[in-house]
């Protein structure tokens, strides 16, 4: 089975801990560098044929909406907890948007949830 590819775009160029969490779960993180990274999320996901993406910008909405309107990805944003993100992944969302939550747990658990979903 191919490794899960996860794109991370943070408005303020963060997301390093989330990327580490993705790796811990056995995924491949693609961390977009620099400010306004969330605005590039949809294009990078498309280019890399990523499995899912994580957007951070206060609500995660801007990156998620671009992904939805430009590529038709199923999205959920304004999420406030790791559990809410896991639920969204289980529901088949391809982009999940949060305020700011640069934690390893988030990257790890979302990736684990995605892997579990694929193995069903």
């Amino acid at each position: 089975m191919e490794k899960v590819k996860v794109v991370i775009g943070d408005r303020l160029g963060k997301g390093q801990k989330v990327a580490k969490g993705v790796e811990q779960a056995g995924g491949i993180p693609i961390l977009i560098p620099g400010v306004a990274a969330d605005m590039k999320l949809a294009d990078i996901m498309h280019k890399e044929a990523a499995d899912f993406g994580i957007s951070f910008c206060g609500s995660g909405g801007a990156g998620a909406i671009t992904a939805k309107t430009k590529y038709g990805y199923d999205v959920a944003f304004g999420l406030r907890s790791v559990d809410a993100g896991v639920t969204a992944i289980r529901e088949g969302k391809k982009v999940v948007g949060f305020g700011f939550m640069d934690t390893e747990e988030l990257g790890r658990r979302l990736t684990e949830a995605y892997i579990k979903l694929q193995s069903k």
Partner: protein
Amino acid sequence: MYMTGEIIQLVDQEIKLADNELNDFKTLIEAATKAAQDVQLVISEERLLRLGVHLVAVIRRANSGEVLPPVDEIMLQQVAADMHDLARKVLGATLVTMPCQEDSTEVLLLAVHFAAAKESI
């Protein structure tokens, strides 16, 4: 340049605006498009949608009392001062119930939208 009504429709299609958010959103989006126009900043439809969605989130944070975590000085310096001014001007157009124009995190997040449009990110 898009008319306010078109932008509202565009954003409302994607994220349903509640009745009590409509006035604030109209105020903010008008202020944002005017601020951009004043400095000859062209904002594409895609960017405008992103900006609109961001402004709705600003309104929702203000209404719920949510405060974003502070950002450090180095992060604030990543975006040019004139873009901060533009963002502050837009947030300053909001109503008294939304005192977010002095919140440096809110200002920065909005400033990035203008900076991205300026630098074609």
